[in-house]
């Protein structure tokens, strides 16, 4: 057992932190939130040059041959910086899914471009109405038409779809239990996008497929057997979100403690008051416990070990731990933390979005219950 990072991972962390401190100011984050695309092409290219997109891919596709655990370190830094970019969509949702289940031909076709920063990918999974990340929630239909499948229906909360080059579209290819993942050209005229206005200022989209043809060669993985692959993709996405959240709440703890040391009332720093000290101690406990449970899940994924329970524990725990952290962070920051000028809200808003993504605490508690044999 070892709960510390390797030297290489510490270096990766430092490089990422320095780079993002330089390139990703809160002014930049705000600009991106207000922009149409939500990301900077220049920064995206620099990230590719740093090898970030390819980090966890095999060298034969141009990747860095590093592990998911290494990627976890990078995701944590991105969360810490509130980095606006289609990295999560492209790498976690898109690229690693192709690596999982794509044919060799598909990998050769998509991964090198992705790794070079030339293509943006995303995953179209969730739909309007109640969505609980189960196969039965998928209603978008794919019907066979010669060498094509025709896809119709609406996906919702699809990240970065408006700027994507390719969409992994999860569709019902058989009325009962037949789910297939299609790799669709995102510029297909049969697709309409509406960018939603969200709490985090990220770019989640409504994606309407109107009789969109996809060649059957673009099936990713196995026809009608897509859901078991999806479960792993959702699991990895949940852990990825946990990693971002760890970076987020770690930074918020630091900001809050710094503020408590500086801010004076009654002629003394508010951090000298025991009630504030205990709030901060509670925050630190939530941050550390979220970190360990997250990295446990990331490590198990990285090692290829079965980890349904550990992933569920990590995401359930951090969802609620982060809510507690933010309640206290705002209380300690006082009114200044409630203003749009202060940086705290960048974190508050992103934490809520991440908590909702890929299953909240109730969703994962039910999975834990099943794993307990209840």
């Amino acid at each position, binding site marked *: 057992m*070892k709960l510390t990072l390797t030297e290489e991972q510490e270096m990766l962390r430092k490089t990422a932190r320095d780079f993002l401190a330089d390139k990703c100011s809160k002014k930049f984050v705000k600009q991106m939130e207000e922009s149409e695309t939500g990301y900077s092409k220049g920064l995206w290219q620099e990230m590719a040059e740093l090898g970030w997109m390819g980090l966890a891919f095999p060298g034969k596709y141009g990747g860095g041959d590093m592990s998911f655990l290494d990627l976890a370190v990078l995701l944590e830094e991105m969360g810490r910086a509130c980095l606006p970019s289609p990295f999560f969509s492209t790498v976690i949702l898109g690229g690693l899914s192709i690596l999982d289940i794509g044919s060799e031909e598909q990998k050769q076709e998509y991964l090198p471009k992705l790794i070079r920063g030339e293509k943006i990918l995303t995953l179209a999974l969730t739909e309007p109405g109640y969505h609980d990340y189960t196969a039965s929630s998928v209603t978008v239909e794919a019907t066979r038409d010669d060498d094509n499948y025709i896809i119709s229906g609406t996906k919702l909360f699809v990240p970065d779809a408006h700027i994507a080059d390719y969409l992994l579209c999860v569709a019902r290819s058989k009325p009962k239990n037949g789910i297939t993942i299609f790799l669709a050209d995102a510029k297909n005229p049969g697709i309409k996008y509406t960018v939603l206005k969200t709490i985090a200022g990220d770019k989640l989209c409504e994606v309407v497929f109107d009789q969109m043809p996809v060649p059957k060669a673009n099936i990713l993985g196995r026809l009608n057997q897509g859901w078991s692959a999806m479960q792993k993709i959702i699991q990895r996405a949940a852990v990825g979100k946990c990693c971002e959240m760890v970076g987020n709440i770690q930074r918020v703890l630091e900001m809050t403690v710094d503020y408590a040391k500086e801010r004076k009332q009654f002629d003394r720093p508010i951090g000298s008051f025991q009630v504030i000290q205990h709030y901060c101690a509670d925050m630190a406990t939530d941050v550390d416990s979220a970190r360990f449970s997250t990295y446990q899940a990331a490590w198990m994924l990285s090692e290829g070990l079965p980890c349904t329970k550990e992933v569920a524990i990590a995401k359930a725990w951090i969802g609620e731990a982060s809510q507690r952290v933010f309640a206290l962070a705002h209380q300690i920051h006082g009114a200044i933390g409630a203003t749009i000028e202060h940086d705290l809200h960048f974190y508050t808003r992103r934490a809520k979005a991440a908590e909702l993504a890929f299953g909240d605490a109730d969703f994962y508690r039910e999975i834990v219950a099943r794993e307990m044999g209840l």
Partner: protein
Amino acid sequence: MDFSFTEEQDKFRQEVRDFLEEEIKKGYWEPTCDAWVQGFDPGFTKRVAQRGWIGLTWPEDYGGQGRSHIDRLILTEEMLRYGAPAACHWFGDRQVGGAILSFGSEELKKEFLPRIVKGEAYFGLGMSEPGAGSDLASLQTRAVEDGDYYVINGQKTWASCASFAQYFDVYARTDPEAPRHRGISEFIVDAQSPGLSRIPMADITGTEAWNDVFFDNVRVHKRYLVGEKNRGFYQVLHQLDYERSGMERLMGNYPLFDAIIQFAKDNKLSQEPVIRNKLAQLQIEFEVGRLLIYRVALVMEEGRAPNWESAMSKAYSTEFEKHLAGVAMEVLGPYGQLKLGSKFVPLRGMALHSYLGSKGYSLQAGTTEILKNILASRRLGLPSS
């Protein structure tokens, strides 16, 4: 990072489990909540000692095995999982032996460590006093030099394991003129010393959980001074870090956890969404707490004394213990109020026992408030209040 155990560690865990299951099968004892601190069973302690499982991390020179803190955590984790009656040796093994090892003279080490290891020396603690709880440095028990002896007068309270203790680890004021943190010394006192008397005290479960221990001109030879004179307060802080470090803070009432999950399954209560949700939340809290405690063992493994790390894991874990007892009572409904021995009592009365007993968990070995003070100052560097 690596969250796995080595093959040897897995094998050791299995060895401990096999031993404990065999004990239960032979009917030597049954799993009980709080057995680590209330289960006095000299035979069990002897059998554990025969396996070399007391003083596991101590140097071989003193009878220990020189094994890792992770091994010790595995051992204690399984003891707690099975609710084994380990109270006779728990304090000596967990902290007093360690204190002697860290601060004691060679003579003291040779006198006590091998006997603790053999399961032949049981320790109780003499820290708190009626007027000195969280503010331990205000303790009033006096130790006055008299030739080769110290003469101790005063009263200690909340002494766990005191009824069976053969020795007490006692903190007394040796320099009343010095600043209060700098006038305290640590002694090992034979419980049979003339002038030492004990009065048992029942906790709210009705268990005789503690003793008041009175010192009336108790003479202790100077060789039983542990460490440096007047450095006792710094030594006790060190010892408390170890006292807080272990799995007993999370798993003290673990047999109830197993039992309530089984109860829910057997009675189809586990189909109820509200109950599923509550039990799953307990499981999540348990597993998260376990990681915080393994972190503490890893800190010790690096050769550092745990400090805010064990403050964090203990503060967290005692909340879990309380939450577990609360949920168990909710699941049992009106049956939860039945006492051991009553008609219809479920789960051998463990839920009721833990519900009441757990109120003390966040007080002993440092209140949650003191632990959060430690976190605020040592981990976060917040200014003193």
